[in-house]
């Protein structure tokens, strides 16, 4: 094998792997806090990417309207849930968060939509829009189901995936899109060319891993989230609002998803349904990491990315087969290493 090809494949694998790592981290985070296996993570990716690409090409992304629509539903849910003790402050707070905020975002998006805003503004708007969708999603779908089994949450998660993917087709059409690079500089080091985009990918992934570590290790909210993950009831008794923990988890996951999308859409063309597969590869990494360990997930994600790069070079037909089948030996090792004696309660 040629060393240049080898290096090139590794570089390619690491770039993809970094994205899978981000998604894997988000999946682990959401699962740990809410027990939801977040299949729609892939939709956060495509929504972020395609909103960004649409804005950059001067189109109006439908996701901004969806954010407001979901905010209205969330508002109704909040009022209904609090119907026994409605008071002015509660109504005002949920009104501001669920209707005024998405309303403002929609107005800003409408303002910028026609005039091809600078990259930074498109990026910020896309992130905010997807974050709003993510938080409302938790409020509408998962908060009412928070007491149910992992299986019920998983199926609900699948339902959300189907609905969001269908909406994606409605918003963005069947055509694929590419967006402008976040950083357009590039430099060469030996035989390898590093684009500003790939450097950004590495930088942001590392920043997120460190950030999550700091957040969970040293902040009050981070610790509250961890407490929720270990024992919901115990956390509630200790005064932690578990629904808030869930919203924070979904907020982080949707921001991470959207950011991943924005980072890859300049590198590869994304379609409304591309997110599912990308998200699933993040899953593979998250499963290898055991759905609990952040560093292990990140390493596994890099591994998945590299395996994918090599298999697409040597056996491009079997790329997906190899990546997903990779899981079986991993699962086998996990089963042999830890014959689980835990008791499932439902």
């Amino acid at each position, binding site marked *: 094998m040629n060393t240049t090809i080898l290096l090139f494949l590794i570089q390619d694998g690491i770039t993809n792997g970094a994205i899978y790592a981000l998604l894997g981290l988000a999946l682990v985070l959401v*699962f740990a806090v809410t*027990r939801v*296996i977040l299949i729609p993570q892939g939709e956060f990716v495509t929504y972020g990417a395609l909103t960004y690409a649409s804005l950059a090409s001067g189109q109006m992304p439908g996701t901004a309207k969806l954010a407001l629509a979901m905010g209205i539903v969330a508002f109704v849910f909040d009022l209904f849930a609090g119907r026994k003790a409605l008071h002015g402050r509660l109504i005002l707070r949920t009104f501001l968060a669920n209707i005024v905020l998405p309303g403002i975002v929609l107005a800003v998006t409408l303002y910028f939509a026609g005039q091809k805003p600078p990259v930074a503004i498109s990026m910020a708007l896309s992130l905010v829009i997807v974050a709003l969708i993510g938080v409302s999603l938790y409020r509408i*779908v998962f908060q*009412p*189901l928070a007491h*149910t089994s*992992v*299986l*019920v949450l*998983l*199926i*609900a998660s*699948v*339902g*959300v*995936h*189907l*609905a*969001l*993917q*269908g*909406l994606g*087709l*409605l918003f963005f*059409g*069947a055509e694929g899109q590419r967006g402008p690079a976040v950083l357009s500089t590039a430099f060469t080091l030996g035989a390898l060319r590093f684009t500003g985009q790939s450097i950004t990918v590495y930088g942001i992934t590392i920043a997120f891993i460190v950030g999550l570590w700091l957040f969970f290790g040293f902040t009050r909210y981070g610790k509250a989230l961890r407490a929720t993950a270990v024992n919901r009831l115990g956390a509630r008794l200790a005064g932690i609002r578990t629904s808030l923990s869930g919203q924070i988890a979904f907020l982080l996951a949707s921001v991470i998803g959207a950011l991943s999308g924005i980072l890859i859409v300049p590198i590869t063309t994304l379609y409304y349904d591309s997110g*599912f597969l990308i998200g*699933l590869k993040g*899953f*593979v990494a998250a*499963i290898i990491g055991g*759905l609990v360990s952040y560093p292990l997930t990140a390493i596994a994600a890099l591994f998945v990315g590299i395996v994918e790069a090599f298999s697409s070079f040597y056996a491009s*037909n*079997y790329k*997906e*087969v190899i*990546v*997903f*089948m990779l*899981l*079986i030996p991993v*699962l*086998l090792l*996990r*089963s042999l290493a830890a*014959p*689980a*004696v*835990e*008791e*499932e*309660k*439902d």
Partner: protein
Amino acid sequence: MTDRLPILVFALLMAAIPFIPGMPPFWIVLLDNIGLAALVAMGLVLLTGVGGLTSFGQAAFVGFGAYTTAVLSTTYGLSPWLTLPLSLLVSGLLAVLLGLVTVRLSGHYLPLGTLAWGLGLFYLFSKLEFLGRNDGISAIPPLSIGTFKMLSPGSIYYAIWVAVIVSALLTMNLLDSRTGRAIRALRRGHVAAEAFGVQTPRAKLLVFIHAAVLAGLSGWLYAHLQRAVNPTPFGAQAGIEYLFIAVVGGAGYVWGGVLGAAIVVVLKEVLQSYLPLILPGSGQVETIVFGIMLVALLQLAPGGVWPWLMSFLPERSGGRKPDTSLTLPARVRAPAEASVLLQVEKARKQFGGVIAVNNVSFDVQAREIVALIGPNGAGKSTTFNLITGVLSATSGSISVLGKKVDKAPPQEIVKLGISRTFQHVKLVPDMTVLENVAIGAHLRGHSGPIASMLRLDRADEARLLAEAARQIERVGLGEQMHQLAGSLSLGQQRIVEIARALCVDPMLLLLDEPAAGLRHMEKQQLAKLLRELRDGGMSVLLVEHDMGFVMNLADRIVVLDFGTKIAEGTPATIKTNPEVIKAYLGVAA
């Protein structure tokens, strides 16, 4: 338990449908599709709803069934009837392979694992040359009997629905049997089932194979209905949809699978044909509505539609009381039962730095009631877990009838005649008291899954249920025999656990806080029962906090504190032992 009349009516109804004059052929196509989906969903009911193993990968097994017959009947020209067993065999064998890996995964790994291999296999179908890659295989011969070829959807209709009804009957038979009870106990965790000799990995593999074979059957029928196969219907989306069908119908009920299939297939059809009229727009509006309805359904009726419908039927008066004149042969006992049944010698258990049990030694003699007492956290339940093989000791030895059992799994311990109850009740709440107690007799029956499906197990089954009923009456819960275990009070559930343990025909009974949650009279009855058992030749080792109960009952008491034995003796000596008083009251007497 199964009432056959409604099934017969249903079968006749399904048989009559094609003869209804003016029946649109398209409806028959829909019914074919419902039948195909119902077969897969039925497997999932057993796997997911009953056994607690969620699989997103069932579509891949449908694919194995379909592709096996497609390849064999086109390339090799085999008769479709010959490929039927082969299709089932291929699905079954691959289920063994994938299952060996998958069923060992706990909780959420399992669904994710199945999702991953489901996807991998889908891509494999679409890449392999001999499976026709993305184009698949066409010109598959139709099913035929003599010269009659099942070319139309109307003619294969009967093949599909005979398969559905026969599979439903076999599956229900399986659930209502010795093996079925073991499967139904899986969802609540391993420990209780294993304590009565159930080989849980084997039971899980069994349901996995059962579900895969049903999916393979559906695939085989699908291939001969469409007479062409391609990878699309065997992808992740389809796998998700099958699970959805099972949950919509009611994941714990065989007929829920059929009902769910009907609801989903019809709903999809309606959405596909009418939504574009209401909401003109590009493409997948029906997917959006479908997804939203799924979430709404879960929020409103998380149990599924079948149990919701059943709740409208009048309550059926409980089952028949088993014929208690039938008896099981007694458990094979050691030739001469020694005087020392259980010998614990310097048993030690460390969890990291914590020493839960610190070199504890004691024994239990024949015909003796020994109580293990001590403050909370003294290591009593851990000692129980060491004896019954749930945990293995860090050092020291445990012998039963002079034979070392340090490394033996729970299934082996119970074979030696040691049975137990649990501090935190481990019953299956949605099974009746009778069924729960019958799990205790698991090792005293012998019928396997195939015999159960074919109802060849009835004589064996009647004896098991008779034994269970006898033990329930012995502990005084005869009135509650046909109630769901979950509906009993906590105290009664503890008594049910004792009945279950008695079904083992044990020589030594281990009871973990049996009197907790009992009223005064009930405690007295329990004490009377335990004395009777002792006088009948059984020994009892019990952990209990109620000192009045213990002091009046036990022949000998062992006191633990912080994992260490601090005293042993008759109730009278223990009562006055200064160490014991110090441990309980915290001050020197």
